[in-house]
C-alpha cells in the first residue's frame, strides 16, 4: 500500500492539470480526495507493516550507474509518512477558501506532498535525493504566487537556501558513491561500507548541514521565519509540518547512517548549534510583533530539539527526535492554521498590538480555544505529544551532554513565556469589547472544514500525548535494524 501514497499524489497532480478551466470547487475536491486516499494508503500500510524493515518496491532504474528504484519502510519512515498524510489532509481543509488560481495551487501542493512521501520511503540515496529536490520547486511557487508579506523575497530565499543545502548533499553523495566504489547507491550498501575516517570527517558535516539547513539548524535557519510568514496557510503548515522534517530525516537517514565516525567527531559542535537554536528561537519569538513570526521562530526552537535528539546518538534521544518530528509537525500545523487561516484571513492583520484591541477571544471563541490547546501542546504540557517527545530528547541529551541539556530546558521555559504572551495578546487583550462592537464588525464565523481540520490535529496530538507508545513501538525497534549498526553499535555486526 505505502508506495501508493507517492503515486496517488502525482496522479492527483495530473488530474488537476487536466482539469479544464478555473473550477476552484472541483480542484479542492480532487485535492482533498487525493490527500485522503494518500492518508488511507499510509494508514493501511502502517497497519499491515510486518515490523522491522519492509522492502516495498525494488527495480533497476539506471543499471549503468547501479541506481535502483528502491522504496521501503521502517518504523521511522512510517511515523513520518503518517505525519505527511495528516498534514496534507488538514492543509487542504485549511485552504478551502483558496479561489485564486486554485487548480495550480493544489497541483503544486500535491506535487510537494508526493515528493515528501517519496523522501520518507526511499532507501536508495539517489532516489531519496531526487524526491528531496522535487519538493523545492513547488514550495517556491506556493509562496511566491499565493503568499503574503514579502512573498517573492521569502520564496526565493527559501528556494535558494534549500538548493544550497541540497547542493552540499549532492557533493557528499557523489563523493560517497565514488569512494565506496560499489557501483550502488542503495542506502544499505553504502551504510555497510566503512568510509575512511578522514573522508567522513569532511563528508559528514557537508551532508548533515546540507540537510539540516532545511531543518532550521542555527545559524542557517533564517529562511524559516521569512518563508513561514510569507507562505499561505497551507504552505506554512506543510513547511513547518513536514518540509522541515525532510531535513532532519535526511540528516538521520543519510548523513548519520553513512558517516557515523564523522558524527562522533562533530557531535559536540552540532549539539551546541542545536541548543543555540532552541534558546535563540524561543528568545526571538518572545519579542516578535507579528503573530506569524512568533510561530515561525518557535519552529526553529522546536526543531532544535529534533537536532539535539539526533546528535545524542542514544536510542532514547534518537527516538525522542523522531517523535518530536511527528509532534512538532502536528502542533506547528495547528498553530499556523490558527494564525494564518482563522485569524489573518479574517482580520487581515497579524500585528499583535492591533490584534490585542480586537477582542478575538470573544469574536472567534473556537480559534481562541484551538490556539490555547495548541499553545499548551507546544509548551510541552503533559497529555500532549510534545511532552513525551521533548522529555525523551532531554533525557537522551542528559546522558550525552548534561550542560546542553540544562540549557535546552531553559529554552522550554522561554517557550512557555512566548506562547503565553502570544495567547494573551492575540486573543485575550485588555480592550473593552462590547457586544454591540462585535455585532457592528462581525468576523466571518469559523467554517466547517476549519473545525474538522482543527479537531483532527488536536485529536492526534492528544492521542499521541496520552499514548506515545503507539508511535514509539514503531520507532524504537527501527534502531535495532542493521542500518544503524554503524551509528549505534560501532560498526556492522
Amino acid at each position, binding site marked *: 500500500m505505502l508506495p501508493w501514497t507517492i503515486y496517488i499524489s502525482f496522479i492527483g497532480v495530473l488530474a488537476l*492539470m487536466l482539469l479544464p478551466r478555473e473550477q476552484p470547487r472541483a480542484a479542492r475536491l480532487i485535492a482533498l480526495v487525493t490527500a485522503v486516499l494518500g492518508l488511507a494508503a499510509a494508514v493501511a500500510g502502517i497497519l499491515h507493516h510486518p515490523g522491522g524493515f519492509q522492502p516495498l518496491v525494488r527495480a*533497476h*532504474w*539506471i*543499471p*549503468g*550507474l547501479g541506481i535502483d528504484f528502491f522504496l521501503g519502510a521502517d518504523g521511522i519512515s512510517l511515523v513520518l509518512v503518517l505525519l505527511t498524510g495528516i498534514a496534507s489532509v488538514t492543509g487542504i481543509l485549511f485552504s478551502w477558501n483558496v479561489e485564486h488560481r486554485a487548480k*495550480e495551487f493544489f497541483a503544486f501542493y500535491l506535487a510537494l506532498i508526493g515528493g515528501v512521501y517519496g523522501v520518507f520511503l526511499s532507501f536508495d540515496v*539517489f532516489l531519496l*535525493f*531526487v*524526491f528531496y*529536490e*522535487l519538493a*523545492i*520547486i513547488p514550495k*517556491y*511557487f506556493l509562496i*511566491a*504566487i499565493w503568499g503574503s508579506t514579502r512573498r*517573492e523575497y521569502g520564496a*526565493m530565499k527559501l*528556494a*535558494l537556501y534549500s*538548493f*544550497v543545502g541540497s*547542493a*552540499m548533499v*549532492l*557533493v557528499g553523495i*557523489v*563523493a560517497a*558513491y*565514488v*569512494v565506496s566504489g560499489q557501483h550502488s547507491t542503495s542506502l544499505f550498501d553504502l551504510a555497510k561500507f566503512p568510509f575512511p575516517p578522514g573522508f567522513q570527517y569532511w563528508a559528514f558535516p557537508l551532508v548533515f548541514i546540507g540537510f539540516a539547513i532545511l531543518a532550521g539548524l542555527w545559524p542557517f535557519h533564517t529562511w524559516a521565519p521569512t518563508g513561514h510568514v510569507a507562505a499561505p496557510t497551507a504552505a506554512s503548515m506543510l513547511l513547518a509540518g513536514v518540509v522541515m522534517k525532510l531535513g532532519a530525516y535526511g540528516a538521520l537517514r543519510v548523513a548519520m547512517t553513512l558517516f557515523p565516525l564523522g558524527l562522533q567527531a562533530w557531535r559536540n559542535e552540532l549539539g551546541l548549534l542545536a541548543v543555540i537554536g532552541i534558546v535563540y528561537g524561543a528568545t526571538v519569538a518572545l519579542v516578535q510583533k507579528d503573530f506569524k513570526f512568533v510561530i515561525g521562530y518557535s519552529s526553529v526552537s522546536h526543531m532544535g530539539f529534533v537536532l539535539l535528539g539526533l546528535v545524542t546518538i542514544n536510542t532514547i534521544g534518537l527516538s525522542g527526535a523522531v517523535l518530536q518530528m511527528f509532534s512538532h509537525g502536528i502542533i506547528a500545523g495547528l498553530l499556523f492554521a490558527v494564525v494564518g487561516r482563522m485569524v489573518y484571513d479574517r482580520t487581515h492583520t497579524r500585528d499583535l498590538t492591533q490584534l490585542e484591541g480586537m477582542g478575538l477571544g470573544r469574536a472567534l471563541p473556537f480559534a481562541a480555544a484551538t490556539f490555547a490547546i495548541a499553545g499548551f501542546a507546544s509548551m510541552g504540557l503533559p497529555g500532549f505529544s510534545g511532552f513525551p517527545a521533548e522529555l525523551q530528547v532531554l533525557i537522551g541529551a542528559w546522558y550525552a551532554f548534561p550542560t546542553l541539556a540544562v540549557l535546552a530546558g531553559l529554552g522550554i521555559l522561554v517557550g512557555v513565556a512566548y506562547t503565553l504572551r502570544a495567547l494573551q495578546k492575540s486573543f485575550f487583550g485588555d480592550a473593552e469589547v462590547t457586544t454591540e462592537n462585535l455585532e457592528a464588525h462581525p468576523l466571518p464565523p469559523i467554517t466547517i472544514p476549519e473545525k474538522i481540520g482543527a479537531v483532527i490535529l488536536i485529536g492526534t496530538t492528544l492521542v499521541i500525548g496520552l499514548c506515545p507508545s503507539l508511535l514509539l513501538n514503531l520507532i524504537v525497534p527501527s534502531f535495532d535494524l542493521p542500518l544503524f549498526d554503524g551509528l549505534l553499535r560501532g560498526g556492522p555486526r
Partner: protein
Amino acid sequence: MSYLDLLRLLAPETIVAITALAVLAVDLLVMRAEPVRKRFTWGAFIGALGCAAASGWMLGAGAPGGIEGLFVDDTLTRLVKFALLVLAVCAMVISMEGDFTRHVGEYLSLMLLGTVGMMLLVSSADLLMIFIALELTSLSLYILAAFNKQDIRSAEAALKYFLFGGMSAAFTLFGLSLVYGLAGSTSLPQIAAHLAVAGLGTDPLLLAALVMTAIGFGFKVAAVPFHFWAPDVYQGAPTPSAALIASGSKVASFFVLARLMISGFGAAAGRGAWHDYSPGWIPTLAALSAASMVLGNVAAIAQNNVKRLLAYSAIAHAGYALLGLLANDGQGLGSLVFYTVTYGLTVAGAFGVVMVVEKKTGGARLEDFAGLSRREPWLSFCMMIFMLSLAGIPPLAGFFGKFYLFTAVAGSAKNLGMLWLVFLAVAMSAVSLYYYLKVLKQIYVSPARVEPPATQSSLSSRMLLGALALAVLGLGCAPDVFVGRLLAAVQAFNF
C-alpha cells in the same frame, strides 16, 4: 575503396545535403509567391523528411565501418548524428514561427548544410577532415546569424561571430599544423601512437599546439575566456539560428573535441587534480571549465533579456560539459554525450518558447514573459520544465546529466582529486537556480504589463515544445533508455 563504398559510408550526410538542395529548389521554383509561413512549413517538412530518411538509413546500416584513421562510423557516431538530426528538425520547426526573412529556402538549406558539417565533424578522425567539417559548420552558422536583415543587431551578431570565428579557426589551424609537424601525420590514431612512443607528452611544442587547439574549440563551445561572441550572437541572431548554434553545433563540437583530446592527444593528458598537477590538456580544460562555470552563472544573474540569459547559461553549461571530457574515460565520454544532447534538446525548447513570446510581444526581455502562464499555460509549463532542467532539478534530464558528469569526473582521479571541480560546479548550479527562477517568476507570478493580442501560438510550436518537454522529462525519469545505449556504444571508442 571505390567511390560507391565512400558514398555508402557517407550516405546520411549525402541524404541531408541533397535534402538541403531539394528544399532550396522547391522553395525557389514552386513556392516563391506563397506566404512566408507556408513556405517555412513546406520547407521544414521536406527538411524533416530528409532528416528522417538519414536517420532511417543509419538505423538500417550494417556493422560499424569507416575508413581507418579518417572517418569513423560506429554506433556512437550514429547515436550522436541521430541527436544532431533531431536538433536540426527542432530548429527548423521553430523557424516556422518566423517572419524575419523572405529567403526561406536559403535559410532552411543553410541549416541543413550546417547539420551536414556537424555530422561530418562527429565522424572525422583526421585533422584535415576535422578542420574542413568545422569550417562547413561555421560558415553556415555565420550566415544563419545574419539572416534578419531588418535588425541591425543581427548583422552585428554575424560580424562578431565571423571575426571571432575566423580568428579562432586560425588558432586551431596553427595548433593542428604544429601537431602535424611533431607527429608527421594528420590521422588521429597515428598521432596518438607517435606521441605515445616518442614520449612527447610534455614536449613544449606539443603543449603550445594543445593550447592553440583548445583556444579554437573553446571558441566553438563558448568557454570562458573565448565566450565574448556568445551573448551578442544569441541575442542578435534570429532565434532559430541561435537555437541551432546553442544545440547542434555544441553537441558536435564537444564530441569532436573529445575525440581529438582523448583519442588523439591521450599521451598529453596531464593531471589537473587537487595537489596533483602535471601539464597537459586536462589542466588547461579544467581551467576553462572552472572559469566558464563561474563567469557564465554569475553574469547570467544580471541579464534581463532572456536570450542573453540563455547565452550566459550556455557558457556555464559548456563549463559543466567540459567536466565529462576531463574524466578522460568511457564514463566521462558517455556523460558528456548525454549531457550535451539533453542540453541541446532543452535549450532548443527554451528558444522555441522565446520565439513564440518574441513574435507576440516583440521582444525577449524578462518583462515580455510576464503573465505568460495566463495566456499560454501549455508553453509556460514547457518552459518551466526547460528552465528547471537547465537548473538541474530532478526528475528532469538536466539533473541526471549533471549527476552523471559529476560521478564520472569525481571517479576519474585518485583520492577524489577532481572533486574540487565538482564542488565548484555544484555551488555554481545553486547560483543558477536564482536566474532560472527569475524567468519562471515572470511567467507564473508577475502580472502581465500589457495585454498582448489574445491569439494562441501555432499548433506546430505547441506540439514541438510539448514533445521536447516530454523528452526532457522522459530522459530524466528513464535515463537508461539513452545511457544504456551510450555505455554500450562508448566501448567502441578508441581510448
